């Protein structure tokens, strides 16, 4: 065990034309850790996840994911993590089982193993009895659980979750975190997640980093953050660090579409 870090980021910069979405950030996520990445809208969370998961190339800086360089060892990096994106990425015209099988094929999991994994994971996420139903008939919570199950088929060492509990009821949120904490403990799986629910981060995460305007403002345990900011709750600490002003977000087509998508596809 030479490399005890699951993720290492050194002086990462990501520019889009003149705009620095991520501005010289460094952090380290230990193996088996649950790491929360917090920040207001547009702070650079999703961009960071995209760089870590090979979807975007870094402008500057060094990163390592499970000991691989996402830029040079793209496929090795990709095989080593699972991801649940902010927006649903299921094919709603396929059944739960078909979505799972498709993923197994994409990740070169043998058919025999895939069968066992799919059964195991769908049972774990309490979706086994609905495996042959089209995903378009699933509720938001079921879709999320299916996405998590899917992201785990290929035995990832890290699970990335970008706002995994957005728009879910407390029951589902609670269930999802119970599964994830369990996986984290039993399989020593590293979890890297973003959220807007401070109490979630407070409860689940071993380490928390707060990012704003592309820069990491603070990182450490929840208690450390509270001590440093002399606040009582993580939410207060967060607001103290990032300010109370509302963030400007461009009403892009994507955003509009996301809403249409939610309306029609649930």
């Amino acid at each position: 065990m030479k490399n005890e870090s699951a993720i290492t980021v050194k002086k990462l910069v990501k520019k889009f034309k003149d705009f620095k979405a991520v501005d010289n950030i460094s952090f380290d996520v230990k193996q088996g850790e649950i790491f929360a990445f917090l920040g207001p809208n547009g702070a650079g969370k999703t961009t960071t996840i995209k760089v870590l998961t090979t979807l975007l190339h870094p402008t500057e800086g060094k990163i390592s994911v499970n000991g691989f360089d996402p830029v040079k060892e793209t496929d090795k990096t990709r095989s080593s993590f699972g991801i649940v994106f902010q927006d649903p990425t299921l094919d709603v015209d396929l059944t739960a089982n078909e979505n799972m099988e498709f993923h197994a094929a994409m990740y070169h999991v043998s058919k025999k193993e895939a069968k066992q994994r799919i059964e195991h994971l769908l049972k774990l996420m309490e979706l086994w009895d609905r495996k042959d139903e089209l995903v378009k008939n699933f509720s938001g919570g079921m879709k999320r659980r299916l996405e998590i199950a899917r992201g785990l088929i290929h035995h990832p060492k890290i699970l990335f979750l970008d706002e995994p509990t957005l728009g879910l009821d407390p029951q589902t949120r609670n269930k999802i975190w119970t599964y994830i904490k369990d996986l984290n403990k039993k399989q020593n799986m590293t979890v890297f997640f973003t959220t807007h629910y401070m109490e979630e981060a407070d409860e689940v995460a071993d380490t928390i980093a707060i990012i704003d305007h592309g820069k990491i403002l603070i990182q450490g345990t929840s208690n450390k953050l509270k001590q440093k900011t002399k606040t009582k709750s993580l939410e207060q600490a967060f607001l103290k660090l990032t300010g109370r002003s509302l963030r400007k977000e461009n009403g892009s087509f994507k955003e509009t579409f996301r809403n249409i998508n939610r309306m029609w596809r649930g």
Partner: protein
Amino acid sequence: MRVIHAMWLRQLKKYWRSKPRMIGMLGQPMLFLLAFGFGFGPIFEKAGQGNYLMFLAPGVIAMSILFTAMFAGIEVIWDRQFGFLKETLVAPVSRTEIMIGKTLGGATVAFIQGIIVAIISIAIGFRITNPLYVPLALVFMFLIALLFTALGTAIASRMEDMQAFPLIMNFLIMPIFFLSGALFPLEGLPTTFGTIIRINPLAYGVDGLRGTLSNAAHIGIHIDLGVMIAVTIVISIIGTYCFSKIEI
């Protein structure tokens, strides 16, 4: 191989499950066959060109393939907006594999649609002149399907949303169809008009189909086949390149 197969199978399942779309896509070629076939038939015969349905059917088969293939290609935008594209792009597979699987899937769907239209044509009176040429006709059909699925994908890769879709429909798909000689003979056309048709790849697909199914090629089956293969290869390469450049 398994990746390509999975992508291909997904397209087929989606096609099979969307019966309204399948039937909807048949409406247009049916209308063309019936309205044009029977409407222009008498004039066509009076002009000494013989049976219009024999002439028209290969054109309408090509049309149905063109439309289905282009739509299948443009679906990439849909996958992108509904997020599914991310699932494939973050997987440890090359984009070329994804592109091949998607294109083959879309092309297969378009090809099946073409076969259905061919069967309908026969049902309303179209006769294949030489059954020995049927395999070659199928090759032409698949080439048309491949070419335009790849073209649709190439265009969709450069598009952020569906807003440009009417533009593509009216300034690309419709002209490709109407200026292909699918509806009228290529003989004795004004030079400029003839030249435009000559640079339209679908014209060669239509002519190839007409040559193999009705024994009435104007350009010649060999040239048709050569041009179709060459253009399909070029467009596929361009499509793969455009697809590899998609940023999420």
